[in-house]
């Protein structure tokens, strides 16, 4: 009897101390879904007059005058050429007779909402750009430079066919570590300016950085790849990650590096349920 009571006390003590330990590390016990709900709640409170879905347009959801200008520009979308080129490239057979469509569900049409995903067997996050290159290599073609025009065009076309679909990213138990690494990167201060991604897009969202309005983090994954007037072409989310890192004085990482794929995984999960609207244009 005493032994049973002792065992119960010991067990409850272990549970209690575990709970105390876990709750003493803020952020340590949150599930991806509770993280996402906290994200939604934060932006609903920060911008009570703006629907969460509207944040897919980035800072243009926050500034009426800039939105008007942007909508005017969208009358003649600058990414249109890339979408057309991407469609042609997508349909062009590889040397072995197969094409990109053979590597994806639904022949690669309207599938971007499922990327990135965690590949349990290979223990890594797979983005759409990575899958495009793996498709090429599996069919005897050379991998594309992630910053190349061809990669921009093919991914722009695939994004275009996915417009209106909603993100459905899942995080299996095996993928939690990658998700957490992406989350850590998002909230870690880095660079000489000592800024985290969250410093601008959570803490200061809606504020101004010189003449620019800082967009909300929610909606940040919906519009890629994007034509940026600064780049004068379509580029990827990872290209923007590099730019953001360098803007705060931190060395960026290679496109499709593990850390950026994990970051995309976290950020895209935060966008679950939101509509894809890529490719888009941004200043």
């Amino acid at each position, binding site marked *: 009897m005493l032994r049973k009571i002792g065992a119960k006390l010991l067990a409850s003590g272990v549970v209690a101390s575990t709970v105390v330990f876990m709750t003493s*590390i*803020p*952020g*340590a016990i*949150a599930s991806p879904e509770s*993280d996402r709900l*906290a*994200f939604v*709640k*934060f932006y609903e409170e920060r911008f009570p007059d703006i629907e969460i879905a509207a944040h897919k347009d980035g800072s243009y959801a926050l500034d009426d005058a800039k939105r008007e200008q942007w909508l005017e520009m969208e009358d003649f979308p600058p990414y249109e050429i890339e979408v057309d080129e991407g469609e042609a490239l997508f349909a062009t057979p590889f040397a072995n007779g197969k094409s990109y469509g053979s590597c994806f569900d639904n022949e690669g049409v309207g599938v971007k909402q499922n990327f990135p995903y965690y590949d349990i067997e290979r223990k890594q996050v797979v983005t759409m750009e990575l899958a495009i290159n793996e498709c090429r290599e599996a069919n005897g073609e050379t991998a594309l430079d992630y910053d190349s025009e061809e990669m921009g065009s093919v991914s722009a076309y695939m994004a275009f066919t996915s417009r209106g679909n909603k993100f459905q990213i899942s995080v299996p138990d095996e993928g939690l570590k990658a998700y957490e690494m992406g*989350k*850590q*990167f998002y*909230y*870690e*201060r*880095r*660079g*000489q300016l*000592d800024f*985290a991604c*969250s410093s601008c897009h*959570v*803490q200061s969202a809606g504020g101004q950085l010189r003449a620019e309005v800082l967009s909300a983090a929610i909606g940040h994954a919906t519009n890629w790849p994007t034509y940026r007037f600064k780049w004068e072409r379509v580029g990827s989310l990872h290209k923007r990650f590099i730019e953001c890192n*360098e803007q705060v*004085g*931190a*060395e960026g*990482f290679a496109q499709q590096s593990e*850390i950026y794929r994990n970051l995309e995984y976290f950020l895209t999960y935060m966008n679950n349920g939101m509509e894809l609207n890529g490719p888009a244009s941004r200043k």
Partner: protein
Amino acid sequence: MFNRSQPTAIVLPVFFMVFLLASCADSEETLPADAAQESVQNIISQAETAYEEAKRLGHAWTKTNGFLQEARSALAAGNKIEARMAADRALFTARASVNQANREKDAWRDRVLK
């Protein structure tokens, strides 16, 4: 009031202080050429080690590598003063980035939306 009959009363202490400061300064110019070279090279080596550590931790700063290259080039060109300045900056930024990485290992958790 300044006494013109005794100018040395003010000039000498000032001269002495300037001499003292100059002799105490850790200037590359006052070191023998080989020692100065070695001193700057030592700082560059320390900065390189700290920079590699910052990279390993994923927190390297963009400025550090530029300062390192500047220091190496100036040293190779025999400009030890410029080399020393760039090496000091490289070491400072590299150490700061490592400190940032260590601080952020846990600090990020406080910023997570809850």
